[in-house]
């Protein structure tokens, strides 16, 4: 059984900008505890849809409710602090790995929390990253290592809702398995965008995001059947 506690709800949402809308009339309800994946062709808008839930892309018409409250600019802070965002291809630059991991702890959001090197090392073990990388610089890391580093950084915030954009795209099978078994084991509510079957097959709910598709609203209670496919309108 899944708890039908509504987390995010889009009603007739238009995403992008009025002059160039990326998605039109999106109806979607996401419940706490779900592991949902937006899939579909590249450029179809799945990444934008994901970002729009964090205010990273504008929702210029329609309604977005988060935990039952209508979202406006003032609520963005709360939303961004509630969810852990994992970017698609983390561009990190040349900074030291520990600096990259520590930066979120210097933000106001994390006041009171401090960076724990041991915790970072534990996460590194869990995702098959060598501990020696902690004293390396980010530009020496491979694509797969950077991707896992971004996941570690997001999880170190301690948040239980994860928004992941193509979290396994640069990973080999072994690393992918480790990420899947950590993120999709039920501990986290996961909202993701992916076209990787190794990830999609383990998500409890699949939503197709593709040009020309008509939106189909679903209510939370129906969405727990594994592998169920829905369409989101464009």
């Amino acid at each position, binding site marked *: 059984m899944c708890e039908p506690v509504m987390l995010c709800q889009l009603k007739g949402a238009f995403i992008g900008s009025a002059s160039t809308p990326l998605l039109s009339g999106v109806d979607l309800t996401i419940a706490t505890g779900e592991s949902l994946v937006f899939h579909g062709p590249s450029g179809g808008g799945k990444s934008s849809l994901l*970002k729009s839930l*964090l*205010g*990273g*892309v*504008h929702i210029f018409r329609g309604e977005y409710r988060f935990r039952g409250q209508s979202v406006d*600019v003032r609520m*963005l*802070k709360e939303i*961004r*602090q509630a969810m*852990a*965002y994992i*970017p*698609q*291809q*983390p*561009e*990190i*630059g040349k*900074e030291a790995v520990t600096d990259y991991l520590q*930066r*979120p702890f*210097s*933000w*106001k*959001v*994390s006041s009171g929390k401090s960076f724990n090197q041991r915790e970072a090392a534990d996460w590194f073990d869990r995702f098959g990253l060598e501990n020696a990388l902690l004293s390396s610089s980010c530009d020496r890391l491979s694509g797969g290592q950077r991707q896992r580093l*971004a996941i570690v*950084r*997001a999880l170190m*915030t301690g948040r239980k809702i994860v*928004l992941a954009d193509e979290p396994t795209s640069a990973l080999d099978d072994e690393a992918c398995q480790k990420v899947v078994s950590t993120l999709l084991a039920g501990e986290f509510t996961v909202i993701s965008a992916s076209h990787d079957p190794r990830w999609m097959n383990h998500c409890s709910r699949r939503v197709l995001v593709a040009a020309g598709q008509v939106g189909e609203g679903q209510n939370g209670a129906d969405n727990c059947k594994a592998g169920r496919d829905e369409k989101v309108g464009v």
Partner: protein
Amino acid sequence: MNEGGVGLIQLSLFYGILILPLALLWWLGLRQLVHGLIVGVARMTLQLGLIGIYLKFLFDQDSLWLNVFWLLVMVTVANLHILTRAGISKRHLFWVSQFSLLAGVGIVLFGMILVVQPEPWYQTRYLIPLAGMLLGNCLTGNILVLERFYSAVGERYEQFMGDLLLGASLYEALQPFIRNALQAALSPIVATLTTLGVVALPGMMTGQILGGAEPVEAVIYQIMIMLGIASSMVICAVLNIVLSIRIAFDGYGLLNRSVMLSPER
């Protein structure tokens, strides 16, 4: 003509020195650069000639309002040049940049007037050349800071989004970009301060010495100018970048891309 002075006839003859560089460029097949150099020299001559006449007029008048008007013209021209070269939309950031320049140059100029104590305080002979020195140096600093900052945010937008969407405030997410841009824009002046007098003799000091001033007096002026230049560069650059963020990013913390045009190099 006193000893060491340059007359108009001598100056016109000195234009002949250009034959050498022009011949070299021509020989290397850089026809466009030859054309560019000729046009550049012509413009420089015309502009400096006109400004010489205008400055003489300003000096004769020595009027507060005329000076203020001329200062505003200088700041506006500098501002337009900065925004064009940095590839930033004038429609969005003109006033922010104008304010930053006025504040950065104004504060330092005020300090300089307190030190020099000209009589009257707005005496054109001091006010206009000092403002010109400050503005000229703020020009490069501000072009660099805006160009670096906005092109870096544009190129590494996903990195910025990664921080912003993870809960950083707008300024927290932009902090690495702000630091990099300021570092790039201000390290040349730091390098200049470090080597000044050893590697290069500053133009103003050289001009003063050639004009007959005592070296010690020229050095004192030069030190004051360098302190002023460094201070106004930092103030202008920091104000410009911090204030522009309020205009260029919306309530969501997202960059309004229409702020960025392509920079002119």
